[in-house]
C-alpha cells in the first residue's frame, strides 16, 4: 500500500487480503447490528431501544 494507490488498487488489495468467507461474515455482522438497532419492530425489543432511536434521530415506530 502506498500514496499512489487508486481506489481500484485498494479494492484489489482488499480482495487479495480477505477471503469471501471473511467478507460475508463482516457483512452479516453489520447487517445483524443494523437490523437489531433500526428495523426490529418486535414490541419488546422496540420498546427497549426506543430512547436510543429517538436520541440518534433514526426512524422509530
Amino acid at each position, binding site marked *: *500500500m502506498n500514496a499512489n*494507490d*487508486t*481506489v481500484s*488498487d*485498494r*479494492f484489489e*488489495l*482488499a480482495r487479495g*487480503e*480477505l477471503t469471501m468467507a471473511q467478507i460475508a461474515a*463482516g457483512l452479516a455482522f*453489520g447487517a445483524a*447490528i*443494523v437490523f*437489531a*438497532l*433500526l*428495523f426490529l*419492530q418486535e*414490541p*419488546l425489543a422496540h*420498546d*427497549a*431501544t*426506543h*430512547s*436510543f432511536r*429517538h*436520541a*440518534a*434521530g*433514526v*426512524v*422509530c*415506530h
Partner: protein
Amino acid sequence: MIHEYFQRGVAAGVIAGLAYGLYMMFVGNPLSEYVEAAAGGHEGGHAHGGAGSLVPETTTAAVSATSGVLWAVLLGGAFAVALYLLEPALPGRGDVKAYVLAGVGFFSVSVTPWLVFPPAAPGAVYQYPIDTRIAVYLGLVVVGVGLSAAAIGAYKRFAPRHVGLGVLAGSAPILVAVVVLPVLAPTAATHPDLPADLVAAYRGLVVLSQAALWLLLAGAFTRLRRWADGDRSAASTEKALSNL
C-alpha cells in the same frame, strides 16, 4: 492492511461508543423520558417508556445506552473499511481524509434523511407507516452518498485553480439539497402535545450528538493510526541502531 484499518475502526468505535453510551445514559435517556412524559406518554396510540410500557424503565435505559455503543462500533467499522477503499479518492492529505470521510458519513447517514424526516421527539404523531419511512430513509442515505460524491468531485475539479473556488463548487450540491429537500418533503411528523421550543432543543441535541459521534470516530481513528505509526517507526529505528 485492511485488517489494521478495520481493527482501528472498531477500536475507535468502542472509544466513541463509550462516550456516546454515557451521553445516552446521562442525557439521551432522561431527556427522552421527560419529553415522553411531557407529551402525555400514552396518547396518540403509541405508548413507550413511562407507565404504559412493556419493559421497565431501567431496561430501556440500559438497552438504549448499549445500543449507543453498538451504533458507534458499527459506524466505526464501516467508516474504517470505507476509508481503506476510498482513501485515494478523498480530498486532503493524511488525517484530513479521515475527517472528510467522517463528514460524508454524517451527511449521508444522518443529515440527508433528516431533511425529509427531521429527528422526532418521543410522542410524535407520524403521517406515514413505519415500513414506508424505513424504505425512504434508506433511499435518502443513498442520495446522501451521491450528493457527497458530487460535492467531492466538484471540489477536486475546481480546487486546482483556486482552493476557494473548489470549496464553493463542492458546497453547491450540499447547499441545494439542504434548501430544496425540506421544501419538497411533506411534513412527516408533528408534535401536537409538545411546546415547539422543547422539540427544537431535542432536535438540536440529536444533531449535535451525532456530529460529535462522527468527529470522535475520526479523531480516535487518526490518533490510533499515529500511535501505531509511531511504534512502527520507533521499532525500525531501534532495529537500525542495533544493526550498527
